[in-house]
């Protein structure tokens, strides 16, 4: 269980326009590539240095690979990161203003307080 790594995936994809498109079109391939090549990259640090211990769990990998934002919420991924990236990927497909955001909320309607802890 690595909320930090889930957040790191969402954060690094969201801030790269090419990765946003790649994750939209090929979620499973992007997650596999990212975990192998990018998960250990220490951000804002000397190039060539990397962490050696960061891995997704099977369920985390599945949720990201299937664009399952409900599961990400339930695992405690930071909701702002997930929402921001989902808007970037899927708002364009909505047929009316805020349609995507309201569908997103409806898919979480079963969630009750207290929400999953997002502390990392």
């Amino acid at each position, binding site marked *: 269980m690595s909320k930090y790594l889930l957040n790191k995936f969402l954060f690094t994809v969201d801030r790269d326009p090419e990765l946003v498109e790649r994750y939209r079109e090929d979620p499973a391939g992007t997650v596999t590539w990212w975990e192998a090549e990018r998960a250990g990259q220490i*951000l*804002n640090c000397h190039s060539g240095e990397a962490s050696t211990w960061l891995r997704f769990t099977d369920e985390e990998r599945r949720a990201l690979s299937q664009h399952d934002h409900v599961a990400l919420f339930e695992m405690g991924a*930071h909701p702002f990161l997930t929402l921001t990236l989902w808007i970037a990927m899927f708002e364009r497909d909505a047929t009316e203003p805020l349609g995507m*955001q309201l569908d997103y909320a409806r898919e979480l309607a079963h*969630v009750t307080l207290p929400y999953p802890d997002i502390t*990392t």
Partner: protein
Amino acid sequence: MAELVAVIASTHHPFYYRASTATGEDRPPFADEWVRKVEAFRETLTRARPDVLVMVGSDHFHQLWLDNMPQFLVGKAPFYDANWYNEEREFGLPRMFFTGQEDLSAYILREGLDAGFDLAFSNELRIDHSITCPIITLRPQNDLPIVPIYTNIFAPPLPQPKRFVQLGRTIRELVESWPSDKRVAVIGTGHLSLELGGPRQFGPHGPDPEFDRKAVEWISSGDIEGCLAEVSLESLHLPGNATHGFMDFMLMMGVAGEGRKADYVDTYDLFHTMEAYFTWYPDGGRQ
């Protein structure tokens, strides 16, 4: 010594820029009234004739990240670029550029550290919509130097609410003891009840109108003690999962002072979240 000429607390709504500049069919029905309210609020800053703006906000995972997360950070740089690719993408915000009041940054850092706040600093800070939104609403000509101060309301573990109030009190003391003849306004932005990425997001109103009503009452009456008695890190989850941004309003209540009624109060009930605007004049508005 410098003079504190205005204390301003506001929500920061990233959709204002797009709504207020949209025309024709793209202009939302709530835009005209929103613009009217913002322009009236803007006048409360204009009449204080500030020379320098201390801007309190919170980075939204732009430059500050979980591998190295400060709780309170002061920008100390001669200039600041502002707004980020994903804010341009989602909100249509423009790229902006600010001049820094670097000597006041240095003073706040030195004196703040000595006053018991282990403040982080940044000499190269790109600021985001928590600070650019109030510039767009309150000072669109963007002609004044700033000191940006970031708080962590976003990535738990967070500081306690009382710590935000204490920092606000300290910021006021430091502004008023700054050896300068400048007129300083302190502007901070946060949220009332707000849900982001959860089941209550983007409703017809903010997720908890009752919390919003109480929050506006606490702020407008300067009821810091009443607010601290009811608000905790745990309780702020209830009105909406992003409501910890309310702690920046609590910081601004600390700047304004216990029991100090706001001289200007306005709200606007929008979809998703309520807008709220407050101004205090420390000298009673005699200026």
